[in-house]
């Protein structure tokens, strides 16, 4: 019984964490809708990437951190992972088709994570230390850490948009 209550409390908290992720995705959509495809693809002088790369990277990182490390299938193609994973940078302009796909994935991925989490599918996790030295031990920690990671790239996007 105590375990049951504890689990319920943890679930409620994770639910609150997802609400921040949804907020983050809404903020990203707000930026995405305000710029042309050309602007989204533009890499300002002094930067390594553009707005669309940062958006793709946010989606890919969430899938890797939460699903791949849990040993579960991701919602995105390997090709997209390679294009936007850690250490990658924009090699060619994203097309309108790619942009439309990203826009859908922005919300589909998080809605699915919420459902999957509530269904209790995250059972195992391959411990992983992120590039900034944070040690992830389970899916909940990955979900919490992911919001910080999204914020960081949102901050970079808020800066890039001043120069496009």
């Amino acid at each position: 019984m105590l375990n049951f209550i504890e689990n319920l409390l943890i679930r409620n908290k994770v639910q609150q964490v997802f609400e921040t992720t949804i907020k983050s995705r809404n903020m990203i959509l707000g930026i995405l809708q305000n710029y042309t495809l050309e602007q989204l693809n533009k890499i300002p002088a002094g930067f390594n990437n553009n707005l669309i790369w940062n958006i793709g990277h946010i989606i890919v990182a969430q899938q890797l951190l939460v699903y791949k490390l849990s040993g579960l299938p991701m919602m995105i193609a390997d090709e997209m992972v390679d294009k936007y994973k850690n250490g990658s940078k924009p090699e060619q302009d994203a097309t309108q088709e790619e942009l439309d796909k990203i826009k859908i994935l922005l919300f589909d991925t998080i809605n699915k994570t919420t459902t999957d989490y509530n269904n209790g599918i995250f059972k195992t996790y391959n411990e992983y230390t992120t590039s900034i030295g944070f040690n992830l031990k389970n899916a909940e920690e990955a979900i919490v850490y992911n919001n910080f990671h999204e914020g960081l790239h949102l901050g970079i996007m808020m800066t890039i948009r001043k120069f496009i």
Partner: protein
Amino acid sequence: MKDILEVTKTSRNMVSKLIQGFTLEQLNKVPAGFKNNLIWNVAHIIVTQQVLVYKLAGLPVMVSDELIEKYKKGTKTEHEASQEEVDEILSLLHKTIEQTVIDVENNLFQNFTEYPTSTGFVLKNNFDSMSFNNFHEGIHIGVIMAIRKLV
């Protein structure tokens, strides 16, 4: 709450690493097209955590009213920070979170006043505010990463 604060600690370590080696002049430089500089973003992260996590919980903050007025939401860089001020900000960067960890262990966070953030997100309890704070710190770290290329 522990996981949340572990991320905040990582965030603070990242901030101190990102601004390491920058001179007082660089920390104070507002690049063209920006409203703020590096030190404003660092102090803003500290002040916001104190307001979101302590003030909304009805608990005393660890920073002065003067610091809050200078770096709270909606402010911008009005003057150059002195070395003394920078030293104070850098020490608060770690001290404030170490204190929050202790205060959580001592169950100090019992009350909360609901609060709508500037991004339209309503904070409903102490967990919410600590969780949202990490997202907020992330945003300003992203800005810091960009500004440091331009100073």
